[in-house]
Each structure stands twice: as structure tokens, then as C-alpha cells.
């Protein structure tokens, strides 16, 4: 049985902006551009927005900076930072705010110019003193520690990790907006330079610029707009640790908890999901996510990837090409929502999944720290 909150929020507009290798716009301007396009998509004006959700490492008070850029004074504001999954978390927060009448039209937005700013991950991440003397590298070290342990405990293979990137490249080939559209082979991934064992260069997401925005409103307001809308059926969030050194499991994440809450709110289970978006900052994320969200047993994520999560498969995962091949401006969560909405509206062109009814999106933030899950439906 779905909970009373299920469906209390409806996504009516989505847009990305300035995804690419170079830009002449500032971070605030890219967020603004994405917000205007998303509002256009919804058939709403920026003036209709009364709640702002945003986070980017560039601004100390991101939602406040964004509202100023847009020239609006919202009555609900949220700059919650759970790392790259924040926007999926914002979606759940927006649902609560809409359900309780605190606002009527919520904007969720992100942007980064990290590619133009030197081509490295721009992050405000601080270090735990107990990591500082050991050369812990945010964020890859933690994901590498997890991948190594997963391979040891469950026999996950180097090739299975590689197949996550290979699959992402198959999806990206179908996405005209993807920045890396050429096919990649298992051999190419396995022969790419080692960065942090067992992770190699092609196990890692891209480093690009880009922004994105999502507009969410109440059921009633959505109905009046008369556009193709997508309902937020379930949401959950959790975090198990902040720092890599404080991780207590390297094979099971707080996705178990966030997923359970999202499924319960929606009254759905993994078997009801037609298309999945999991934040793939590194290949191991997809394997951990598929397991922790119940698409297979713990330890069998690699086998599920072998079975197929690409175009034409029973369980299509990361249909945009993901952070590995589509784009990755630092905090990818916003694009998980955008792609799921495009799939459910059946606007995904060559990569369109066959008549999807339910999409699951799962964001991962920090060093496998923050987790946010949402289930969307037509």
C-alpha cells in the first residue's frame, strides 16, 4: 500500500544547461539558465516559484545565491548538502514541503564549471584529521577500498566492473547529448591506466561543466498545467558515515535504508521498476546500488551486470550514459531525475525504454556516504 505522501509531488519541468567542456557562463548563470528552461518546459514562470532547493560547491548558501540570481524571494529554501545525491534528497524534501502546504512550486537546481576551472573535481569537501596523514584522496580512495573488498568477498571480477562502463557507452551512443559517444570495450577499460587499485581511468566518471533544474509542484497545480507530468511516488534518504576512514562496511551501503523507505512510500518493490538510474561516479557504485536496492542478492551485482543492464535488457540502468559517459559536472544527482523524467514521458529518443511506468533513481554522495532514493511514476 502506498503511503499518504506517495504522489504528493509532481515533476512538471526538467532541463539541463551548458553540458560540455567549455562555457562562457558563470555557475549562477548556468543554474539560472537551467531554471528558466525547466520553467518553460513546465509552462510556468520563474515568478511562480516559491521554493528553492540548490547546492553546489561554489556557493556557501546555494539556494540563496540562486534565488538572488533569479530575482525571487521564496518562502521555502533548502541548501542541504549530501554530496552528489543532494538533488534526489531535495526531491523528497520538496515532496514533504508540498504535501504540508509550505510551498506550491519548487525549483531544484545545480551547476558547476569545474571543467573550465582546471579540469579537476571542484569540491568543498573537508578532510577528517585521521585521513590527512595517509594521502586519502577524495573521493576515489573510498570507492577503490569498496571495490577491492567487494572483489575479495564476492568474487566480483575486474571484467564485471569494466562491463559497467561498456554498458554506459552503449547507452551514451544512443544519447545525442552525451559527451563521450564512442563505444568502449572491456579490454579498453581493463587496460586503461590504474588510478587507485582496482579502479582504472575508465572506471571513473567524466569531469565536465554543466547545470540542471527540475520543477516540482502539487498534484492539483500539475493538473492545471496540462503537461506531461511525472509523479514522485516514493522518497528516502540516509547516511551511514561522512568520511572514508569512518566507513564500517565496504560492501553494503545506506542505500538499503533509503531504498526501503522509498519502496514503502510508493508501495512498490524492485520487481515493479522498469528503468533505473544509479549515480555512477565509479563503476562499483552501480554494482553496490543494484544489490542494496534489491535488484539482486548481495554479492551478485557483477553477475547482474553480466546478464545485461544495457539497451534492450530487462533492467535498463543509466540510460543517459550516466556520469561515466554522458556528463559529470561534479554532483550528478540532478541528471538522474532529468533522465528518469524523460524516460517516463517517453521523450528519450533512440534510448527510450519500452513503455516504462516506474523509474527508480538512486543518488550517492560523498564517499558512499549520502544516499537518496526516489521512485517516479507516470
Amino acid at each position, binding site marked *: 500500500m502506498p503511503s499518504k505522501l506517495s504522489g504528493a509531488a509532481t515533476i512538471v519541468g526538467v532541463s539541463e544547461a551548458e553540458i560540455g567542456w567549455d562555457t562562457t557562463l558563470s555557475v549562477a548563470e548556468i543554474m539560472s539558465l537551467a531554471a528558466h528552461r525547466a520553467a518553460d518546459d513546465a509552462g510556468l514562470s520563474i515568478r511562480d516559484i516559491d521554493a528553492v532547493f540548490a547546492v553546489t560547491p561554489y556557493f556557501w548558501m546555494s539556494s540563496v545565491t540562486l534565488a538572488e540570481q533569479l530575482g525571487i524571494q521564496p518562502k521555502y529554501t533548502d541548501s542541504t548538502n549530501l554530496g552528489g545525491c543532494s538533488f534526489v534528497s531535495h526531491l523528497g524534501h520538496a515532496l514533504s514541503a508540498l504535501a504540508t502546504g509550505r510551498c506550491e512550486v519548487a525549483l531544484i537546481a545545480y551547476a558547476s564549471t569545474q571543467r573550465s576551472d582546471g579540469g579537476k573535481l571542484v569540491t568543498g569537501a573537508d578532510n577528517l*584529521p*585521521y585521513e590527512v596523514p595517509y594521502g586519502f584522496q577524495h573521493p576515489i580512495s573510498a570507492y577503490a577500498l569498496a571495490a577491492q573488498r567487494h572483489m575479495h568477498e564476492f568474487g566480483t571480477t575486474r571484467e564485471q566492473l569494466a562491463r559497467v562502463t561498456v554498458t554506459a557507452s552503449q547507452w551514451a551512443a544512443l544519447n545525442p547529448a552525451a559527451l563521450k559517444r564512442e563505444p568502449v570495450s572491456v579490454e579498453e577499460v581493463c587496460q586503461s591506466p590504474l588510478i587507485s587499485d582496482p579502479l582504472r581511468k575508465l572506471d571513473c566518471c567524466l569531469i565536465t561543466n554543466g547545470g540542471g533544474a527540475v520543477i516540482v509542484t502539487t498534484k492539483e497545480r500539475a493538473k492545471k498545467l496540462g503537461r506531461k507530468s511525472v509523479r514522485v511516488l516514493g522518497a528516502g534518504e540516509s547516511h551511514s558515515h561522512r568520511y572514508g576512514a569512518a566507513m564500517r562496511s565496504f560492501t553494503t551501503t545506506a542505500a538499503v535504508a533509503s531504498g526501503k523507505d522509498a519502496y514503502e512510500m510508493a508501495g512498490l518493490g524492485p520487481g515493479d521498476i522498469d528503468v533505473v538510474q544509479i549515480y555512477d561516479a565509479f563503476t562499483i557504485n552501480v554494482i553496490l546500488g543494484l544489490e542494496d536496492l534489491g535488484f539482486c542478492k548481495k554479492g551478485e551485482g557483477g553477475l547482474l551486470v553480466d546478464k545485461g543492464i544495457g539497451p534492450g535488457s530487462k533492467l535498463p540502468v543509466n540510460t543517459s550514459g550516466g556520469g561515466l559517459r554522458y556528463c559529470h559536472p561534479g554532483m550528478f544527482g540532478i541528471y538522474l531525475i532529468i533522465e528518469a523524467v524523460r524516460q517516463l514521458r517517453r521523450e528519450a529518443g533512440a534510448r527510450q525504454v519500452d513503455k516504462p511506468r516506474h523509474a527508480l533513481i538512486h543518488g550517492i554522495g560523498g564517499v558512499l556516504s549520502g544516499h537518496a532514493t526516489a521512485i517516479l511514476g507516470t
Partner: protein
Amino acid sequence: MEETVNRPCPEVRGTGEKYWVSGRNGTLSIPQCDTCGKTHWYPRSYCPHCDAKTLKWIACSGKGVIHTFTVARQSGHKYFKTKVPYVIAMVTLAEGPLMMTNIVDCDVEAVRIGAPVSVIFEDITDSISVPLFKLDTESVL
């Protein structure tokens, strides 16, 4: 003359000061809770298992087992770029908790999950020493 670049020094303010300083005397010390009996790493001012304030410091044996590790092959850090490839590991201490460290003085290709390790210390200031670990058997090569 080239400036010597040292291993980065952690901020020691708080409960952890005792942790770093005890290393200077060659002891790995961690907190143990008098109420629930559990140990933890990294040191906190309340027990993260049962919330009690009743923590005491215990001297560890310095023995542990590698739970997981990664070999950092590149670094942009002025000290660590002189150390690549280096091993970042999580070690399960004999006393219970997992801790982050480097596995040093070995061929990085010889490091394995499950390998027994022992603590050594590297002095980084007059008052602070950093616990590092080395493989127990040199013969694993």
C-alpha cells in the same frame, strides 16, 4: 636547496590529541567504553556505540589484519606525489575497530586483504607520531 616536504600533519584539537601524542611514545591508544565495553576508532568524546561518556584509553597490541586497501598510483599532493605508488588501507585492529593507515616498507604488489600487519610510528612533529603498518611476513613476496 630543495625544501623537504613532510607528511601532512593532522589537526589535533579535541579528544584525539591523546591519540597522536601517545604515538610519540610508541603506543597505539584507542578509546574503550567502560559502559558497553566496545572500542572505537577514530577517537570521539562520547561512545559512538552506546553514547556513554565513560571512555578510557587502552594501549593496543599494534597487531591487525588488512580489511581492504587501495594502491594510489597518482597524486597531486606535494608530499604524496613523491610517495606513489603508496598503499591506503583499512586495518582491523586486534582490539576490534577498523582504522585507516598506510601499509609501508613493502612492495605494493605484495599487499593482500587478510594479511597480518604490525604498527610502526613515524614522527612528524615534536609531539605527534603517525601510526603506519607494515606486513608481518617479509616472505610473502
